[in-house]
């Protein structure tokens, strides 16, 4: 399953790139996930809960930033998780590429996602699993761009407070620890009113 998402960061490339590599920022953006441990600069562990109809999967796994190329501003997030009750697993590789766009930057995320084990072996829901997977990736991208955009406000507000001192992006505080969100479920995504998929259901399936 190959998915492509793009989003913009209202920051020049070198600033945006540093933000992007900060594990503390990326982890909470994975929808439905609880960050359990930041192992090191490049690695964090967490649990992602996904509710598919009657089945609630909780993937415990690790994610690592690898092949970080600060010149080309590309990096790969390798994530692998297994369901706590042995019902399968997910392996994802998200390739980030950051380029300048106007006075901000644009990030393109190419994700290869493969499910394995029982959770992947249900042909009747394979179409659905792909839709939920693409929802997760687009939600991740949306969360990340929202996260970075909100930081930009803090950054500009702070800059005006300390007028004249060049702010070093590094000292931007980490936003509050991600609150352990409810399992991402079709209901969860619903409340976030994201995706044409769900709007169509709400309207009782009226055909546009």
């Amino acid at each position, binding site marked *: *399953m190959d998915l492509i998402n793009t989003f913009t960061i209202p920051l020049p490339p070198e600033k945006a790139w540093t933000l992007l590599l900060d594990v503390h920022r990326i982890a909470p953006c994975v929808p439905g996930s609880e960050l359990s441990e930041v192992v090191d600069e490049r690695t964090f562990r967490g649990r992602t809960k996904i509710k598919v109809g009657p089945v609630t999967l909780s993937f415990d796994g690790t994610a690592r930033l690898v092949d970080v190329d600060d010149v080309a501003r590309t990096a790969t997030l390798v994530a692998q998780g297994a369901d706590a009750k*042995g019902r*399968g*697993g997910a*392996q994802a590789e998200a390739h980030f590429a950051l380029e300048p766009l106007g006075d901000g930057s644009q990030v393109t995320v190419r994700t290869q996602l493969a499910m*394995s084990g*029982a959770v992947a*072996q*249900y042909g009747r829901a394979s179409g659905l699993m792909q839709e939920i997977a693409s929802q997760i990736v687009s939600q991740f991208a949306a969360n990340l761009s929202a996260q970075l955009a909100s930081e930009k406000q803090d950054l500009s507000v702070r800059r005006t407070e300390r007028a004249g001192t060049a702010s070093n992006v590094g000292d931007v505080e980490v936003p509050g620890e991600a609150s352990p969100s409810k399992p991402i479920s079709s209901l969860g995504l619903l409340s976030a009113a994201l995706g044409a998929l769900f709007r169509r259901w709400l309207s009782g399936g009226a055909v546009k």
Partner: protein
Amino acid sequence: MGARYFGAEVQRLEDPRLLTGRGQYVDDIRLPGMLHAVFVRSPHAHARIRGISLSRARAMPGVVAVFAIDDLGEPLSSARMPEMMPAPIIRRAHTQYVLARDEVCYVGEPVAMVVADSRHRAEDAASAVDVDYEVIPAVVDIRSALGEGAPRAHLGTIDNLAARLEVGFGDIEAAFAKAEHQLEFSLEQHRGIAHSMEGRAVLASPEPTPGRLTVWTATQSPYLVRRQLARVLQKDEQDLRVIAPDVGGGFGPKSVFYPEEPAIAAAALKLGRPVKWAEDRREHFVATVNQRDQYWNLSVAFDGSGRILGIRARVLHDNGAYLPYGVILPVTSLAPFPGAYALPALKATLDVIYTNSTPTAPVRGAGRPNAIFAIERVIDRVADHLGLDPAEVRRRNFIRADQFPYVTGMKARDGSPVAYDSGDYHACLDKALEMADIAGFEKRCEAARARGRLRGIGIGSFIEDTGLGPFEGATVRITPQGTVQVLTGAASQGQGHATTLAQVVADVLAVDITRVTVIGADTDRFPYGAGTIASRIAVTAGSSAHMAAVEVREKILKYASHHFEVAEQDLELSDGHVQVIGVPNLKIPLGDVAFALSGTVGQRMPANLKPGLEATAYFEATATPHSGGTTVAEVEVDPDTGMVELVNHVIVHDCGRIIHPGIVDGQITGGAVHGIGNALFEEMVYDGSGQPVSMTLGEYLMPTAPEMPPIRIGHLETPSPLNPLGVKGAGESGTISAIPAVIRAVEDALKPYRVFVHRYPLNPERVLRWIDAARQGEP
């Protein structure tokens, strides 16, 4: 030989037990102290194993032991499974470890084994086994598997080619040079999973005598299992007893030696307690061999009258991750050429390609349905190209009845030239067309059109090599109580061998059939056995039982001739006695003869006969009887939905003399429905990363009762000259000929749209897409 039972519709001796719930399948056996095993299987198509942690599982309630490869100890922890059917053309024979070591190469490969006091608690512990996998690229599609950049199905190998087969005869270049017409086309064949209703199962129990082990296993080849177990466990064969009790259907996959067999045996030996594993349905989808894809590219040279002059074939065959059964399946995918036809020239190559999926091996008919489908598609394509009646093109190419034995030009597995012993393919075709009321077909087409349905009819002619050697032996013994025992290596999975062998022996010894007990598939009760595959038991074990019974009869006549002092020809056997012809009160019950021959201390053996009223025979099948015949199928297609409805199915079949009509008809009807399943319903779908996706019987569609058409069977009985009974095999012809007939019938229904059906299975979306493509004028 009074033919009282041979050819009679006898009620099967197996039925009273099976009808009242008193069958004994492996999972029904309960032994004191018995433990239950469950396997942890790879969820990945291809991955390195970085580590396995068993501690959590070992601490779970009810768990007695948890094994990974190193816990099995030598010799299993370092020895891969043996190469079963070595052949010179095999370039690299990858076989798996009993439990995976360092690398898993298909979803379902066993990685660990949990043994607990119940199946339920063993499964709980299995989900607590932590395996650290590093997923690596998998080979999924054989069409790109030999390409440069393709991933390797096994780490450290240069390519994915297991073997390259080349067969042929005649001057293929000349055939194509002088041909008026040539055609080229390709086919996609997907045969699915056997899905016997009973999955596999193994129960191993240590015997009181140290080191001796009894293994019950749902197998078609108990002797092969014992031989390979002895090899893998490095034990002497006589310390191993392998029994196939009642087996709930085999259809091919249960003829293979599996890693679970040595794993369970090793666990029982280590724990000193009986250990049982019964495969559940989801395991059967991935852990039991099946058949998958073949891609064929065919070109045919022919003349204006439809005479085929030469065929070239290029085939890619999905072998799966390992070679558990040599290259038998790919070999049988070419061996049936030239089918029922007198083909002057053939050149066929087949690449056996490793992929990261469940190993493939024979399923009902093995590769024969694949070869026959290709040949029948060639015939239909030539007929359509020339605007000729497909039946007529078959008649012009059939081997004529007066050409037998017909040497085809092909080589058998042992290298000997293939020759068809007897048959009459023209008669089978004509009778099938008559039974299918071909004359009334046009009228039926009109009626269907009025209902908005397209109706089509299709033919599938076939041959099948049956009764493969070398032998399946039998011992016939009469007990002092006058009962008859038939001991044989032959294993039955529902074919009714206990009845057919009893019919043969009861006729020779003139005893009531209910006095005959057949004991098979127990390595302690009969010394040697080959395996129940490819419709071979009636020919091999049947002939051996007949020969042994004849030898026992001769012994009886010698004894009675000595006893009554009359010539042997003045004696006869009837109703469980030997008697002087015409003098009814001069008779001896056969039990008394047995008693006399069991020896009394100090007495001489009567008529200096050898001890015991018994004989053993091994009919040596040196040549191969070939069954043949034709299926005619009729369907209706709904052009709005693409749904196909089967409306009629006729098979005319020539398998030589028939021992039990009901059993032969049952084999053909069941086989036909399996072929219909392959043609229209059964598809094992994998996703792009090699994950099996159709993992329930709600998604993998097996044919069920309402969807099946009436199936009518006609017989021709051209005796085979190659064995004393004149019989041929009948097990798989229903399957082999159903696929081409059904596919052609759908193609015929779509003739307004000039569609060439190049693949199976069909589903309604594929049929509708062809109709749409034709409507928009695309080729």
